[in-house]
């Protein structure tokens, strides 16, 4: 153990001390493989082992008897070393740390109080780490005890009936206007297409009249007017009728003057 450099600061990454001194371990010690296996699964590293030793003997973490602890710790490390246990390197670093603390405690030291008013105890950093690690251990235990999805409960996921009809595009009035705009813009460039601004309602009425005429052969002229709908509506129907006649879509038939006028679809 004396090969370990004692000045290694506690907080440096452990890998830095994975030095050559530990590559050749004594091979003459025997540990039953199962025991080592249990050991491996039991402790999560040197801090865990230290905590175990401290707690097992009801030692005060804040006033660790370094000699006792170091001696016990070394017994375990010797066991591990014997089996060329991969984690031994980390355990060896801790051994170095413990020995360093122990030796510093042995040295006569002046009573130095640092800026925070704390006694400069060589054990302070180790104690800090042990307490922090203990908290994390408790947190891990706590996390494991919490209900976790799939282990302790399941998400509800109810099947949604597939929509039978495919989703159809929706349009808005704006889409229609835009289409018409772009159309007009194009047709303005081709002036020979005569697109006039015309009452859309007349066109709609024209469609309605055609729809009705499809049902019967010919209808009385008056029957195509909704008398109670108001004057505007009458004018609308009249204009639609004129336009239909002009476009040759309907024929107006009057057999004798002052007789009823009949409307029917135009025939050739």
């Amino acid at each position: 153990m004396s090969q370990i450099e004692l000045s290694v600061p506690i907080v440096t990454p452990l890998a830095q001390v994975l030095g050559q001194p530990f590559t050749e371990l004594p091979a003459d010690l025997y540990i039953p493989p199962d025991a080592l296996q249990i050991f491996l699964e039991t402790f999560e590293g040197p801090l865990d082992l230290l905590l175990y030793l401290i707690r097992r003997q009801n030692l005060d973490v804040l006033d660790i008897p370094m000699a006792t602890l170091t001696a016990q710790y070394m017994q375990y490390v010797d066991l591990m070393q014997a089996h060329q246990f991969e984690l031994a390197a980390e355990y060896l670093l801790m051994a170095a740390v413990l020995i360093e603390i122990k030796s510093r405690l042995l040295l006569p030291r002046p009573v130095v109080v640092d800026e925070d008013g704390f006694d400069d105890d060589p054990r302070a950093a180790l104690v800090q780490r042990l307490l922090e690690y203990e908290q994390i251990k408790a947190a891990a235990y706590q996390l494991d005890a919490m209900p976790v999805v799939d282990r302790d409960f399941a998400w509800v996921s109810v099947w949604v009936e597939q929509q039978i009809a495919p989703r159809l595009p929706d349009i808005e009035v704006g889409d229609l206007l835009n289409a018409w705009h772009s159309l007009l813009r194009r047709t303005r460039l081709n002036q020979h297409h005569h697109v006039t601004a015309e009452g859309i309602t007349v066109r709609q009425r024209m469609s309605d009249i055609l729809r009705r005429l499809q049902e019967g052969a010919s209808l009385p002229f008056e029957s195509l007017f909704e008398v109670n709908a108001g004057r505007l509506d009458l004018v609308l129907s009249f204009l639609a009728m004129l336009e239909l006649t002009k476009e040759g879509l309907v024929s107006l038939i009057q057999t004798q003057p002052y007789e009823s006028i009949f409307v029917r679809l135009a025939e050739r």
Partner: protein
Amino acid sequence: MLTTPETAKLILEAALLSAVEPLSFAQLKMVLGEEWQNDQIRKLLQELQGEWANRSAELVQLASGWRFRTRPEFQPWLARLTTEKPPKYSRATLETLAVIVYRQPVTRGEIEEIRGVTVASSIIQTLMARGWIETVGHREVPGRPALLATTHQFLDDLNLRSLNELPPLSELVQVMSQESLPNV
């Protein structure tokens, strides 16, 4: 584990609510345990079905087993969650529709004249299948081309009472001349 029928029903409900596949009767029996008779399980399932009547989901028996599914009438709301964009009609379809709206009754040839391009049969078919346009007559010229017009359903689907509610063309032309309109 000893369970009351009430707890057993809750267990079945939990299993069915969380299952991603329909659960077969054998699976439901496995969940409850062998001490439950088929008759009892069937009774519990029927009771569950009854309890879920008029709720947001229903317990249905399918070929492969039992499962909860949301009621179809809520589908329109659930569909709002799907991130996929709703399909859109092509510009050609929209323009064809616009011509029919503003120039009805109109033949396909007349639409082509206004648009300056051929109108594909598929466009007319799409709009007819949607129930938005229909044939209201024929122009008595060679070939007797169909006269196309918009339907009541078109007005309903666009939430219009009548085409009146569309801005008159004269206004459109004015707006157009300002050249501020977006290109479709």
